[in-house]
């Protein structure tokens, strides 16, 4: 029997689900090996009986928690897709300011009804057990297909344990950090084929960190190339500002350090 698959989203741009729809060349084949029972962005079907739940987005409003718990209770396998679901992502940039302040700036201070927001934007793993993660902002469509293949085969989807720098070297992209551009490739988890540096933007660690990130060395490298250590800490906030993710680099690259 084909595994029954469902897609859900919390606070996000739904870009990762769009990446799923971007597997155009193999979409008919994909639909022949899985049965999609719930995918609001593309289908009317609202099945509650599923084996695998792919969940995008971070938890940002009070209702999100119970809804995610219900998905967890129904799914045999829960897969977090994208930086928001795995790490908090850009949503967690707001965690350094109290939510009352945010509400004041955007909603004239209203926090009732549809304007309600949790104090922190957080990854799925802060509330439920997540079986697997597909990292990235957005996820890579090929990596998604490979994860589906692994899940059908009953194996563990592969997540590269090494740094983005490895992929830059393999594809021959000149080092941005050496040109004084604030790139996080040395601490960031690979798997994206280092696409950002190849297209002229520094790595911002949207896949989180690899197995042995050396934040202290990152701060020093920034300093050596004419940037402040503080800038390194600031760049690390972009996708990795959820408190549990943040602790390691805050110790190594204190944002209060003047240099």
């Amino acid at each position, binding site marked *: 029997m084909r595994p029954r698959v469902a897609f859900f989203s919390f606070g996000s741009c*739904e*870009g990762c689900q769009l990446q799923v729809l971007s597997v155009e060349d193999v979409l008919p084949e994909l639909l022949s090996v899985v049965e999609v029972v719930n995918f609001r962005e*593309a*289908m*009317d079907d609202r099945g509650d009986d599923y084996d695998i739940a792919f969940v995008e987005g971070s938890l940002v409003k009070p209702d999100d928690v119970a809804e995610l718990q219900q998905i967890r209770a129904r799914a045999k396998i829960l897969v977090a897709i994208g930086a928001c679901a795995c790490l908090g992502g850009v949503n967690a940039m707001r965690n350094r300011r109290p939510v009352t302040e945010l509400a004041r*700036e955007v909603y004239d201070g209203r926090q009732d*009804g*549809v304007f309600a927001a949790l104090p922190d*934007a957080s990854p799925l793993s802060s509330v439920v057990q997540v079986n697997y993660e597909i990292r990235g902002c957005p996820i890579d469509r090929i990596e998604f297909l490979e994860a589906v293949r692994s899940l059908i085969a009953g194996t563990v989807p592969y997540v590269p344990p090494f740094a983005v720098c490895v992929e830059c070297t393999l594809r021959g992209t000149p080092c941005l950090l050496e040109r004084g551009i604030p790139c996080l490739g040395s601490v960031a988890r690979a798997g994206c084929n280092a696409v950002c540096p190849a297209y*002229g933007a520094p790595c911002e660690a949207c896949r989180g960190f690899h197995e042995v990130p050396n934040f202290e060395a990152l701060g020093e490298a920034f300093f050596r190339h004419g940037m402040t250590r503080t800038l390194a800490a600031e760049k690390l906030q972009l996708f990795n500002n959820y408190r549990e993710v943040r602790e390691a680099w805050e110790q190594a690259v204190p944002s209060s350090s003047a240099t």
Partner: protein
Amino acid sequence: MGASRAVVVRHVTRIEGHGNIVVDLEGDRIKRCDLEIVESPRFFEVLLQGRPYDEAPRISCRICGICSVGHATASVHAVEAALGITPGPKLRAVRRLNMAGEWLQSHILHVCFLVAPDAFGVPSIVPMVGSHPDVVKRALRLKRLANDICCTVSGRHVMPISYHAGWMGHWPERVELRALQERLIAAEEDLDALVELFAGLSWPVVERRVEHLASLEDGGAYPMMGGPLHSTSGAVTAPEAYRDALHEYLVDHSAAKHVRGTDGTIRVGALARYALAHQRLHPRAKDAAARLKLRADSANPFDYVAAQVVESVQAHQEALDLVSALLVDPAPEAPARPGRPHGGRGVGMVEVPRGTLVHDYTIGADGRIKSANCIIPTSLNLVSIEGDMRAFVPSLVGRPSPEIAHALEMLVRAYDPCVSCSVH
């Protein structure tokens, strides 16, 4: 007084994001008729505060997966306006090519994947893989081509990478452009078939005349890269004075702000652009409009679908023309330098697939963003969507509730709302 009943759709399907339809009827009197926007607030305007301006296109494109190229474009335009940077002709051409790619991908996604199932009476495109394999294959081919245009220019379609104020982090190479050119030429047939398909479909009629708005660029091009905001009322507003024409306000049932025009309800997007700029279309797109019998003065929101089909032809033609022009000389252009490096305020106003998008930044002398405001096309359309629902309901009251719900979902869907984007 007739019996009361409620028509509720929790989480309208085949749209981006979370919205509910809530209608309360008492006999045939409408007591309530709302499109609740229950998407999560993400506070992007606050997230941008304090960040270096170079990050702005990359942070703000995360507002929306479907129109991330549009957000990056509006964002980089706002930064350039603030810093006094005038982009060169090749930079403008490459960015326009990427926008054409995004228009094509977004419109094809909407008309073929999200809307077409209604015409065939199925809940999604999935059953059509078996029943209408040619329709599905053509849609998939066009969508792939559109995605690949964006991948060529900016590394990927969702979250474009190479946007910087005054320069591109990557310039498409001759070999990449030539490959695109070949595929664009081959795709003409698919677009022709798309027009044929939609010319044969019919939709409900909800005629309701409201103000149509689009940002028309100087020089006569079809509206895409932004310029003064034109209204069917005749009013013209400079981008930086957008607050004179667009008035944001809060309502209890929507996490997205509602927006009023000067005279009341407004519409933006393909239908509004077509109303204001149909003379600017390429002859191929004009021909498509004639085959689709799309009237320039249409006030029927279901015509958004036909207008998007017309614009798909336009986007395809523009992409082909731009690729061919770039192939003459694909060498990178020198970066444009800031004329006002100490910063200031800048507004980027562009036409994204769903309509007029505004990014308004103030950049400090330290190169960091001090404040930001973004207005999203779906926000601009919310008042109109609810007005159309109200106008549509009386013709539906005799039917069972599930049918009313389905008809209203189709109406909301016709606008191609981008809900999480509208809340941001």
